[in-house]
C-alpha cells in the first residue's frame, strides 16, 4: 500500500467545544490506484487530505505513507518525506509567480538537495509528460488555468513521488479543461504506479477514480467501485 490510514481521528479543541473533524477513518490506496473522497462541506474531506500529506497531525490513529508512519516520525523526517514522496495539486495551483514553469517543477527537488542541472532536466521531462515542455520557460501569469494546473501536476509527480494528493484540482477550470486535468491525473497514477487521493465535491470528477468513498461528519459512510480483492485485503494487514 502507498497510503494506509487506520482509525484516523482528528479533533480540534477540547471538552464541550471539541470539533470532531474525523472519527476513526480507515482508507488504503494501492500503487496505481486513484481514490476519490466526496462529501458535503465540513465532512472532513480536506482534513483527511492534510493528514495524509503530513501537513496536519492526527489526534489518534496511524497514517502510513510508503511504509512510514507519519505519526511517529519527527517533524523534520515528515518534511523530508513530504518533499520526496508526496505531491500536491490544489484548486488554485499554488505556483510561485516569480519562477518559470520549469523552476516551479524543479523546486521540490532542489529543496531536497538535487543539483540544479539534474533538477532542471527532471523538471523538463515531467513537463513533457504532461504535454507542455514547450512552456518550460514561461511564467505562470503568462499561462492559461489549464496550463498552470499541468505545471502543478508535473511538480506533484516529479522525482520519486509515490503519493499524489489533489484538492479540488478542477475547481478553477472550465469543464473541458478540467476533464483533461483529470485524464492526466488518472494517467499519472496508471503509468507510474503512483497512489492518488482526489478530494472533490463533483461527482463527474470523482467518477475518474477507481474507488469513490463518501465522508459525512468525519465518518466514511459509503463506497462505490470495485471492492479490493481478498488477497489485497490480507496483504494490507
Amino acid at each position, binding site marked *: 500500500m502507498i497510503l494506509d490510514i487506520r482509525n484516523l481521528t482528528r479533533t480540534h479543541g477540547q471538552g464541550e467545544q471539541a470539533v470532531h473533524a474525523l472519527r476513526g477513518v480507515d482508507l488504503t490506496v494501492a500503487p496505481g490506484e486513484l481514490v476519490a473522497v*466526496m462529501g*458535503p462541506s465540513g465532512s472532513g474531506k480536506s482534513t483527511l487530505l492534510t493528514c495524509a500529506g503530513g501537513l496536519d497531525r492526527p489526534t489518534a490513529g496511524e497514517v502510513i505513507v510508503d511504509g512510514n508512519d507519519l505519526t511517529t516520525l519527527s517533524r523534520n523526517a515528515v518534511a523530508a518525506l513530504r518533499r520526496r514522496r508526496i505531491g500536491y495539486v490544489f484548486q488554485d495551483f499554488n505556483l510561485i509567480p516569480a519562477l518559470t514553469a520549469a523552476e516551479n517543477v524543479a523546486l521540490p527537488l532542489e529543496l531536497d538537495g538535487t543539483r540544479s542541472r539534474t533538477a532542471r532536466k527532471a523538471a523538463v521531462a515531467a513537463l513533457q509528460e504532461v504535454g507542455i515542455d514547450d512552456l518550460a520557460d514561461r511564467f505562470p501569469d503568462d499561462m492559461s488555468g489549464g496550463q498552470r494546473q499541468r505545471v502543478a501536476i508535473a511538480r506533484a509527480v516529479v522525482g520519486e513521488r509515490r503519493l499524489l494528493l489533489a484538492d479540488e484540482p478542477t475547481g478553477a477550470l472550465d469543464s473541458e479543461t478540467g476533464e483533461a486535468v483529470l*485524464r492526466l491525473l*488518472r494517467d499519472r497514477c496508471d503509468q507510474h504506479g503512483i497512489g492518488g487521493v482526489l478530494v472533490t465535491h*463533483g*461527482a*463527474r470528477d*470523482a*467518477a*475518474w*477514480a477507481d474507488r*469513490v468513498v*463518501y465522508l459525512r461528519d468525519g465518518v466514511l*459512510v*459509503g*463506497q*462505490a*467501485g470495485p471492492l479490493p480483492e481478498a488477497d489485497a485485503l490480507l496483504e494490507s494487514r
Partner: protein
Amino acid sequence: MSIKHGLLALLQDGPKYGYQLRGEFEAATGATWPLNIGQVYTTLTRLERDGLVQAAAARAATVEDDGRSMYEITGAGRDELAKWFETPVTRESRPRDELAIKLALALAVPGVDVGAVVQRQRMSTMQSLQELTRLKRNSSDGEISWQLVVESMIFGAEAEIRWLDHCEAMLLRHRGTPRPAPRTSVVPDEQEARS
C-alpha cells in the same frame, strides 16, 4: 424519442436493410440503446404503412437479408425527420422519474430510513457514473457520435447525484420539525387571490 426517427435519420443517405439499420443505430449510440431486429422490422413496417419509407427497388436477395427488402426514405419521411430535428425535446414527454416517486413515498410512508435510501442510491448512481467515465476514457476521438450519448448519460447521472445531495440537505434541515397540518385551503386561497 422513438426508434422511428432514429431509423429515418439513418435512411437519409441511402436505402438499407433492417440488420444494417440496427448495426448503424447501435454504432451511433455506442450500444447504449440495444435494439433487437424484431423491433427494427416492426418499426419499418409501421413507417411503410404511414408512407414515410418504402421498399427500395428490388435487388438480388442474399442469404444475409433473409429474403427481406431494402427500405428507402420517402419525401414525407424527410419532412417528418426535419420536423423532428427542429423540435426540442420537452421534459414532460419523458417517462415519470421512478426515483423521485420512490423518495416521495419513502417520506410519506412511516418506518423508511430515507437517509439510507438516498445514500444507497447515491453510491449506485456513482458506480454507473464510474462505468460511463471508463467507457468515455477508452473511446477514440473518431467516435464523436456515441461520445455525445455517453456524455449525456454522464451529465444525467451527475445531476441525479447533485439532486440527491440537495434532498439530503433538505431532509436534515427539516428533521425534527413537526409536519404541518394538511393545507386543505390551498385551492380556495388561490382562487381568491386570482379573483
